[in-house]
């Protein structure tokens, strides 16, 4: 087998996939602003994506905040800087860990569920049936999921921020014997509105990525149960990678001096 032929095939397949994703993204975004709007479906998806993700996101944020406090305390104690725990926990959670951890957890839960649901609809011709019933599948299936994720992810991340900081506070005061009043004062003094809003902006982008990748993989699944399984895996993997990559890009843009 010609080595260059293999490389060529891989590159062409990759370019083809990028092209398909670009067209899918364009179709999805353009249908967001064109009627009809399916408000009832939007409400249902906000419940499924936002409300039902709350427990897993809250638990993740709480334990991440607690673990972060311990690590900063242990690291800080080697250079006599234990007092920075409150500041670093607040900044770390609101700027990075809150949105990224929530994004990854929701990607695992929601992106997979969307890909499995739409993938099954695809292989059983339910998506084709929508077309024959004068209903645009992008408007009916993709738009409510994407819009719901873009709206609910920032709300989830805001709650994750509060719970994550609280996790750090509880561990610091109960286990590391920090003074609660001083801890709260340090958190308030160093935390700025921009720290929180930057995380919420990231969350909205992550929401878009999560729902879009779930829908894209579901719409392109083929080959029965195995194809649906592959679409589900691909949705979680691609959404997770895109979350981490876009997080780096947004951090470098939002915090550039």
């Amino acid at each position, binding site marked *: 087998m010609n080595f260059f032929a293999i490389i060529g095939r891989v590159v062409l397949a990759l370019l083809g996939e990028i092209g398909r994703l670009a067209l899918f993204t364009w179709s999805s975004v353009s249908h967001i602003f064109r009627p009809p709007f399916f408000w009832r479906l939007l409400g249902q998806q906000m419940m499924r994506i936002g409300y039902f993700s709350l427990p897993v996101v809250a638990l993740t944020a709480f334990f991440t905040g607690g673990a972060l406090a311990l690590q900063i305390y242990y690291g800080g104690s080697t250079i006599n800087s234990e007092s920075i725990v409150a500041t670093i926990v607040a900044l770390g959670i609101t700027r990075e860990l809150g949105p990224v951890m929530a994004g990854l957890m929701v990607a695992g839960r929601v992106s997979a569920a969307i890909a499995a*649901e739409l993938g099954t609809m695809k292989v059983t011709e*339910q998506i*084709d*049936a929508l*077309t*024959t*019933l004068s209903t*645009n599948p992008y408007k009916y299936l993709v738009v409510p999921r994407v819009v719901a994720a873009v709206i609910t992810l920032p709300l989830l991340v805001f709650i994750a921020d509060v719970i994550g900081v609280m996790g750090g506070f509880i561990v610091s005061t109960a286990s590391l014997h920090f003074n609660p009043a001083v801890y709260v004062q340090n958190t308030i003094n160093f935390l700025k509105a921009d720290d929180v809003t930057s995380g919420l902006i990231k969350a909205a982008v992550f929401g878009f990525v999560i729902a879009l990748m779930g829908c894209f993989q579901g719409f392109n699944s083929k080959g029965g149960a195995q194809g649906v399984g592959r679409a589900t895996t691909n949705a979680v993997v691609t959404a997770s990678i895109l979350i981490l990559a876009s997080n780096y890009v947004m951090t470098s843009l939002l915090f550039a001096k």
Partner: protein
Amino acid sequence: MTDTPKIELKNVTKRFGSKVVLDNLSLTVPKGKSLVVIGGSGTGKSVMLKCVLGILRPEKGEIYVDGENVLKMSTTEREQSLRKFGMLFQGAALFDSLPVWQNVAFGLIQGRKMRRKEAKDIAIDKLGKVGLGPEVGELYPAELSGGMQKRVALARAIATEPEIIFFDEPTTGLDPIMADVINDLIVASVKDLGATALSITHDMASARKIADEIAMIYKGKIIWAGPRADIDSSGNDYVDQFIHGRADGPIKMDVLKP
């Protein structure tokens, strides 16, 4: 002066990679007639229907519905044109997240913005027309047998009273009695609505029952077309082999000999 055909395909070609599925296919469905396209598996029957519906886009050719080239329509015009259609899918393709009545009423509620109460009444009426009671409306598709799912799918296909109905392998997977029940329902529904029907099947009993005219597709081309009564005297070896279900003949199956 001749009537404009309800559906007309002219020299339609559709490829998947290097495989040519529809090869310069031309077909005409007259208004108010029931045309059945017969042919073996993988000969391009379903692809042909999906091209007419806009689910697939052919590389070449023209497709006319009521004299308008649907391939040149904008998305909005296409969506408008699709209101003329109803379709019964091979696997029923019912929405498994919705109860039966919402499946039947889907085109009325989402496509035509009808109030849910009014749409539900129509859905229950259509379920009655296919022999299913109102209690079935509250069940979910997974709770129904294959025959009942097909009947619900038929009720959904006729709920909006379309001008054109497509039937994709309507009797596949059903026992002979249920298949005959479905065939009778199809004939009655098409007659009631005065609709134009285009069906694809490899079930000859079904074709003989629901067709006014029959066409045979082979390797992506229409190789014979004529009135139902002429099918047994077509003089076409491919058609003869197919309708009699013979292994010997010009159609060769790609099977490995033991």
